[in-house]
């Protein structure tokens, strides 16, 4: 039997609000896309386009993908993202599970350690020295090893979630003689799919977008991540445009020698094209994660 659709006031209002939200959210991305497809000199001379490209040009997109180095960068970023996300999910949730057990001894110590590590930082100099001494500087492992653990922030989120799982489940499992590991893997994890999915999204996006690791902790271009490759591409274009206009420190000699680039790309359009290309995978994964945000995950487990 079909259910009648309830078209009450609330649903209408909600629909209107959601439409507004969608428009406000999609327009900026649309704006980015059309401008990346606009000729760069045209953008520089006449400003950004609002509705449709004035002068269509694929050159900005071409510029981003033409260097084969982008494939290496993509490989590094993809592998790094997958490895780090999986490791973080396991280690952080495991830590959080143990931390969430009220009968854990020395809980306060772990909490203190956690909050200290979250809020107080030794700064980039100390981290750099540490990584150098560990032999991680300028190697692939600098992307993996320091990031194996997800940080105490994520621990707190998991903990809040785990505490909400009813004690009866634990008690019955413990009576059955199950070890903590067993309880964790077979009971807790399956019940926490939603929060794991959410944190997975945050982690994936965070790792994917990171470029400061490449910037400070590597120097080999074989090791650059996708985002760093893009930042570099865009910055070098922008830096040159900037220098040509820098009045204070340069003589006219420099200006004379740094020819203006003629091209159909400008730093702006390049930045946009690159940003979109880098964002596409991220935008694509979200619908997969959403599948976990369904209701009634726990339904049936107690009654069973």
């Amino acid at each position, binding site marked *: 039997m079909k259910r009648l659709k309830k078209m009450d006031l609330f649903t209408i209002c*909600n629909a209107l609000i959601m439409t507004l939200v969608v428009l406000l959210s999609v327009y900026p991305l649309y704006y980015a896309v059309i401008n990346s497809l606009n000729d760069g000199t045209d953008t520089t001379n006449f400003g950004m386009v609002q509705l449709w490209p004035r002068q269509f040009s694929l050159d900005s997109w071409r510029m981003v993908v033409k260097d084969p180095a982008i494939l290496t960068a993509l490989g590094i970023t993809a592998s790094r993202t997958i490895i780090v996300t999986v490791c973080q999910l396991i280690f952080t949730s495991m830590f959080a599970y143990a931390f969430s057990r009220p009968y854990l001894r020395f809980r306060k110590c772990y909490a203190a*350690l956690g909050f200290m590590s979250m809020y107080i*930082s*030794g700064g*980039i100099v100390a981290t750099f020295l540490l990584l150098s001494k560990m032999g991680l500087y300028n190697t692939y492992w600098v992307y993996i090893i320091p990031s194996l*653990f997800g940080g105490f922030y994520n621990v707190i989120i998991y903990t809040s979630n785990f505490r909400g799982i009813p004690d009866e489940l634990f008690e019955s499992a413990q009576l059955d003689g199950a070890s*903590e590991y067993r309880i964790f893997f077979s009971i807790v994890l399956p019940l926490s799919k939603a929060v794991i999915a959410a944190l997975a999204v945050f982690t994936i996006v965070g790792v994917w977008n990171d470029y400061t690791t490449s910037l400070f902790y590597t120097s080999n271009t074989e090791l650059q991540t996708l985002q760093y490759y893009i930042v570099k591409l865009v910055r070098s274009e922008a830096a040159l445009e900037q220098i040509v206009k820098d009045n204070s420190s340069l003589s006219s000699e420099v200006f004379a020698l740094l020819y203006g680039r003629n091209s159909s790309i400008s730093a702006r359009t390049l930045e946009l094209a690159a940003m979109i290309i880098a964002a596409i995978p991220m935008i694509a994964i979200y619908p997969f994660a959403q599948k976990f945000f*369904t209701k009634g995950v726990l339904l049936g487990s107690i009654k069973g």
Partner: protein
Amino acid sequence: MMQMTISKKPRKPAMRNEFRRQTELHTMLLPGTVMMIVFNIIPLFGLIIAFTNFKATMGWEGIFTSQWNNFRNFRQVFSSSQFGPMIRNTLGINLLGQFISIPMAILFALLLNEIRSPRRKSFVQTAAYLPHFLSWAIFGGLIKNLLSADGAMNQLLMGMHVIGQPKEWMADADCFWTICIASGLIKDLGWSAIIYLAAISGVDPTLYEVVDIDGGNRYHKMRHVTLPAILPTVMVMIIFAVSGMLNNNFTQIYVLQNPLNMERSNVIDSYIYQIGMQQFQFGIATAAGLVKSVFALLLLVGANWTSKKLTNSGLF
């Protein structure tokens, strides 16, 4: 019944069992602990830089051998003539911002939850989370464009006869906080709602059925089932927001700032950035970072205590 409730007192398992359990738990904690100690605690030696006259040319040994400088770095952080306004702006933007954006994100998550068709729901969710991926350089540029004298905002307001003349909104310092908060909201609403959506999906559907049976409508469901269920998550997010009071989204401020709105747009992070641009100033950047960290920790403890008192849930 997956709700996030307060924990109840556990029953103590048997003695030898307990030892085994503790061991298992501690081994679960081990990897994380090692990582935190190695990568977060050990580098704390870098904090020495905040207290000394260290220069990069001294090499790393210089960190330990340079002279104590009598808190000079700290004094410089506090002695800017702009210190007062910077604090005011930082706190103002953050407090007001969080005060508005957290409820909005929750509201959005609730409304999203009410969408019947899963496809539409998925579509709206994905759309809402898109602006997060735009860089502030682009998004800020778009905002500035829209708010300019011949931009869409003025055209809209004049068309609706709200104002007679186009106004240069970005030049008005008093509007800055609003612009900053509103633009931040558009950009990150969908993203911030994710965590609340995850929490909402954990609510036991049978509780909703109970409300139905009692003759309640969706408002009752929200008020009596959903909201209390996600309260612990909300409190966690609020506590973190409070402890982050002194941190601004620097990129956003940098893009939206201009000479005429400076008195409302100058924040602590802008100052630290400027100092950091000068050579030899690792010391000041570290000192400023340390001061902010200490404050953040204090705020964290305070917020957590308050949360426990008010809602009986907190971080620890």
